[in-house]
């Protein structure tokens, strides 16, 4: 295996470490799914293995989600087919993740996810197919969420089915429709994860759980499973479903098919068992991926933006410019605002106006805004003082001399 290592300890617990070579973050690709099936088979078939713990070998992320750039070649193939053939082919392709994840959660042995870092989209979805989730409480960069809808996609790795079955439709809608990314503490409070412990104790905690729970089963595979908060035709659940459609329509004007299809995935899926629910999700995912809105959003908001952020348009040999100091001419409403956001971004600001009192007044705006932050305990006084000190109110135009940029705001 290229992406995973499997090491079994003396208790028979296999530690599976996700660590794709030559990339900064682990992502799910067709190749990765193949290896997941491979080690799942090993865990299931090998009598010496009593259970498994999945973690990541990277501090950057447990797994950042699906490899959206890899979709290009799939669509290239699909484009050669008739409409119906294309849907069938894409469905088959997109269902592979369900086969792998479903196999994992029904392998007959306990599987725990030790989430050491960021787990988003497909990265969170693979942990939802584990029987136990523990996340590092001391990693400030650790965020959990299903942000797919933000780039026009829906959670297509079982997220629309497992998350509401875990935390109820209302909370699941809240996370999925707005692509919210939450901390380990918040995830624990919502019931997305079972425990949050310091990173150093993560593997130990996950292994202890595996050892203590040899009969692990997903709640939705248990005989008397009930959806938390109720399904669409449960008196309490109905309230959620009656409210969510107008709420989403109000916010999207019907222009975002991802949010729209998430509603149907959950509505239709929660009336069925998990396997049928996953088929529903996969049909809507396949339908969604053929919509121009989604294709365009993936391209513009995700792929192109990533390329831009990496300087994709920078001519070769062009050195990186840096703005350390700016001069803002005019300390009125606009100038004061520019000074404020620039100082917040760590830039020295010379705030120039025709008389000193006007310049001072422009700086006072920042003082007021920072004061509010301090009052709300969003910032400490020392940091606020440091930011305020970056702004120099003056009437002297000569300060422009060493400015990296001059902004006219008169």
């Amino acid at each position, binding site marked *: 295996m290229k992406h995973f290592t499997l090491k079994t300890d003396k208790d028979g617990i296999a530690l599976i470490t996700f660590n794709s070579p030559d990339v900064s973050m682990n992502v799910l690709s067709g190749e990765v799914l193949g290896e997941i099936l491979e080690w799942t088979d090993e865990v299931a078939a090998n009598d010496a293995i009593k259970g498994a713990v999945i973690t990541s070998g990277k501090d950057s992320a447990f797994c950042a989600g699906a490899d959206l750039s890899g979709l290009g070649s799939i669509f290239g193939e699909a484009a050669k087919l008739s409409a119906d053939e294309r849907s069938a082919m894409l469905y088959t392709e997109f269902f592979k993740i369900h086969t792998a994840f479903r196999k994992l959660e029904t392998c007959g042995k306990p599987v725990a996810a030790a989430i050491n870092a960021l787990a988003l989209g497909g990265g969170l979805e693979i942990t939802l197919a584990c029987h136990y989730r523990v996340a590092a409480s001391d990693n400030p960069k650790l965020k959990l969420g299903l942000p797919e809808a933000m780039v026009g996609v829906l959670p297509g790795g079982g997220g629309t089915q497992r998350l509401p079955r875990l935390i109820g439709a209302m909370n699941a809608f809240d996370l999925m429709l707005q692509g919210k990314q939450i901390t380990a503490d918040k995830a624990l409070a919502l019931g997305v994860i079972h425990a949050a412990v310091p990173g150093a104790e993560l593997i130990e905690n996950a292994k202890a759980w595996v050892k203590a729970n040899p009969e692990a089963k997903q709640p939705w595979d248990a005989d008397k499973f009930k959806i938390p908060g109720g399904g*669409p035709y449960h008196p309490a659940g109905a309230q959620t479903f009656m409210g969510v*459609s*107008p709420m989403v329509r*109000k916010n999207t004007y019907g222009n975002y098919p991802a949010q729209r299809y998430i509603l*149907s995935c959950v509505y239709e899926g929660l009336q069925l068992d998990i396997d049928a629910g996953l088929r529903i999700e996969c049909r809507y995912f396949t339908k969604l991926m053929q919509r121009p809105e989604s294709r365009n959003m993936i391209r513009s908001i995700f792929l192109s933006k990533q390329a831009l952020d990496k300087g994709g348009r920078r001519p070769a040999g062009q050195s990186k410019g840096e703005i350390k100091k700016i001069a803002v001419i005019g300390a009125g409403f606009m100038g004061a605002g520019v000074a404020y956001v620039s100082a917040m971004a760590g830039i020295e600001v010379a705030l120039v106006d025709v008389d000193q009192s006007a310049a001072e007044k422009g700086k006072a705006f920042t003082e007021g805004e920072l004061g509010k932050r301090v009052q709300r305990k969003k910032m400490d006084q020392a940091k606020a003082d440091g930011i305020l000190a970056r702004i120099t109110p003056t009437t002297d135009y000569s300060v422009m001399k060493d400015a990296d940029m001059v902004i006219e705001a008169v």
Partner: protein
Amino acid sequence: MTEAYIYDAVRTPRGKKKNGSLHEITALQLATQQLQAVRDRNALDTALVDDVILGCVTPVGEQGADIARTAVIDAGYAQTTAGFQINRFCASALEACNLGAAKVMCGEADFVIAGGVEAMSRVPMGMDGGAMGIDPSISFDHNIVPQGVSADLIATKYGFSRDDVDAYAMESQKRAAKAWKEGRFKNSVVPVKDQLGLTILDHDEHMRPGTDMQSLGGLNSAFQALSEFVGLDSVAIQRYPEIEAINFVHTGGNSSGIVDGASAVLIGSKEAGEKAGLKPRARFRSMASIGSEPTIMLTGPVTVTKKALAKAGMEVGDIDLYELNEAFASVVLRHMQAFDINPAIMNVNGGAIAMGHPLGATGAMILGTVLDELERSDKQTALATLCVGGGMGTATIIERV
């Protein structure tokens, strides 16, 4: 084609929802007692009744599993009388009458009893679920909002103020009180008996005769808070972009009351009536049901009135009395506005705002009410209609014989 006639029409008094007298009486009993009243008042050999059609909007729990046939058995009718339950939401009982008339007209039946039952204090609205408001493929894609929001949308679009709807509500209370005082309902209202056979309710108990503009004006909007919380107003406006903001004018005081009740109308051919020794009171002149835009939902009576008039070869002015269910004040105001109807001939004896709207039973109640009024005021022709969920409308034109 055979003509269909109305021989009798009965209804229960309407029991209010909160601490109401009929809460202790089963839905089945409400229906059963109406069937028994039709039989006993007319000394009717029930073997002559081919079918019983009852409207019911929430046919679950005790109202489930075909309450019409259940009531036929319970009422001690001949076992040969069939029965079935239908649901056209608020117009169910009027649709039942139209269906009954159609069965007579086409020769399938000689006598049919049509009406409805809804014990709303016992089987709450919405208990039957339904995809309309819950499945996003209908509620999201087709801008479906609850009826109250539609009623406020009508008020906004057609320019009815809070004072307009409150004034209409006050008039409804006044007319209902006067009608009761003068005994105008006594021919139709059959008191409901309790388990001992004693009268438990003999009047419409939802009425508030003392209602004035001040008391109505003090009530809060029934739909604004929820609507703005989940964005229902935005959903409606996305369908009607010419509207900037919904004017939330409807309250508990100018909307129909939630009540328990049942109704039954005896419909038959001329021949059947002669054989049974009964005198027909009115003839079905025309009948219609329509669908219209489902977001505004409640302007269906305008469309269906046109259709029923056209089928009868009549004009608006040919109708002596109009009876339009007072689901919400704006529904009636819009109807009068659309056809320039004189308020004096619309809902002469008040309506559901004062007396309540037992969903599946109301249609036959208003048909009976307007027939009584035709006879009392010695007029000839009446049109009864109701607004219906999903943008539908049902109407019936009758004339005295």
